[in-house]
């Protein structure tokens, strides 16, 4: 199993690590039993992601996918941000080993939960819908087909 140079770069030098103290949206996904937990905090202005930070407990791929998704989402509209797919995340990192594809689900799910958190707090309809990795019984290793919902 080999990581691309880009995965290693984001793992060794993760971008946007931390917590936004007065965050507008917060998303936390994953669970410790699986070994991966990710938290995203957002600063939102005019339905655009002005600032984004993450914290992740997890393997190299989990940290790298978290890092890249913060770069991808920064400046995006909420609508575009929740449309980021695990495939796009993996492609942005020049690929992920098959056994690590679920890590990109964690990253996109974290973002979705944070966006919906913001919307719901402001009395608006959530746009991302349910995410699997927020479920305490989420199995990140389950068959890949289970996650195809976010490629729609």
């Amino acid at each position, binding site marked *: *199993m080999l990581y691309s140079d880009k995965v*290693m770069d984001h*793992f*060794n030098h*993760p971008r946007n*690590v931390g*917590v936004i103290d007065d965050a507008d949206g917060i998303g*936390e996904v994953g669970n*410790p*039993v*699986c*070994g*991966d*937990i*990710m*938290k995203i905090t957002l600063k939102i202005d005019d339905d655009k992601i002005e600032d984004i930070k993450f*914290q*992740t*407990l*997890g*393997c*190299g*791929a*989990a*940290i790298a996918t978290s890092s890249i998704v913060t770069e991808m989402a920064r400046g995006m509209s909420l609508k575009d941000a929740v449309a980021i797919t695990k495939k796009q995340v993996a492609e942005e990192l020049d690929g992920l*080993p098959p*056994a*690590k594809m679920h890590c990109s689900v964690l990253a996109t799910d974290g973002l979705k939960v944070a966006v919906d958190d913001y919307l719901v707090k402001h009395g608006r309809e959530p746009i991302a819908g349910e995410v699997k990795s927020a479920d305490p019984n989420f199995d990140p*290793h389950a068959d890949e087909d289970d996650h195809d919902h976010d490629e729609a």
Partner: protein
Amino acid sequence: MDTPRRIYFDYAATTPVDQRVMDAMMPYFMEDYGNANSLYALGRDAYRALEDARERFAKGIGATHPSEITFTGCGTESDNAALLGITARKSPKGGHVIVSKFEHHAVLEPAHLLEKRGYEVTYLGPREDGIIHVEDMVVALRDDTVLVSIMHGNNEIGTIQPIKELAAAAHERGALFHTDGAQTLGKIPFDVAELGVDAASFSGHKIYGPKGVGALYLKRGTPFEPQILGGGQESKKRSGTQNVPGIVGFAKALELMLEDQAEESLRLAALREKLTNAVIERLENTEQSTTVDPAHRMPNIASLLIKGVEGEAMLLQLDNLGIAVSTGSACSSGSLEPSHVLLSIGCPPEIAHGSLRVSMGRFTTEADVDYFLEVLPPIVERLRSMSPVYDRMFGSSAR
């Protein structure tokens, strides 16, 4: 920029070939390359080298007769052959088999196959101390128990099983006893007569020998159905042209291990204690994976649980600094679960994800340990500081 240091701390995974082993093997690649089963001079030379190696290997493990040693392609093959070959001959229509829960997959997988073939298998758990207790095995033994297979030294947590007592108890109920000695051979005393086992498996590359050679000890009279069929080499127990250079190297490697076993095991145990104690002292929320006393640990394996970090992330960060270790986290293996060994001793999955195995050997120095102790704490602290749950899970005294 400095050339990065290269520190190998994964001797339980494999070892470099010792130069003296290499020297012993070399003639059998290009000069004495004959097939040990050929009648002409070249073949006879190879045969003599092979049988000389068998004799020396047999002596090294306390076997009564060289014919009790069957050379194989690897430790896994030896384990497979022991489980499948003994059951097939002793009780071909089925029966009961006991293996421990924390065996190597080379034992667990053939045990699963035996289940498919109609045998009943008991997977015997260790206690929290990482030891298979004789009284627990006695409860599991049945009148129809054909074979018990329990490893000598555990490859992940380094605990040593009371093989002598376990084998004696198995024999009392008429069961045969196999042990996987891949981790302990040469590192701590391993004498088949003293331990009283019927079968034992070994691997060359764990003791500075080459990869691609293993051995299976089968006490005289132990029922065994060959698993690799062909030209009838190895007294019909394992067909296939013998790997003469590998076997010569394996025998040489074992002799070298035995030459300084007592001193080397003391030296490594001291390094293990230093490393373990210092990691626990310098990093909060760390502990050894078992609390068993040092006398029941392999001298060269330190097994640490570093809570609130994920093992693969630690491994990769250490690798950046030239240090090779291993971890039982799920992510490192690409498998579904964290290490079955850690789960078997009651370690919760969220803790097992942060396990770190540091295994030392012949070329490990105290300076290597000091370097490790210098670089590990900042790595762990940085990863913990990136975790969204560290403070929540382990208190805010962090960092």
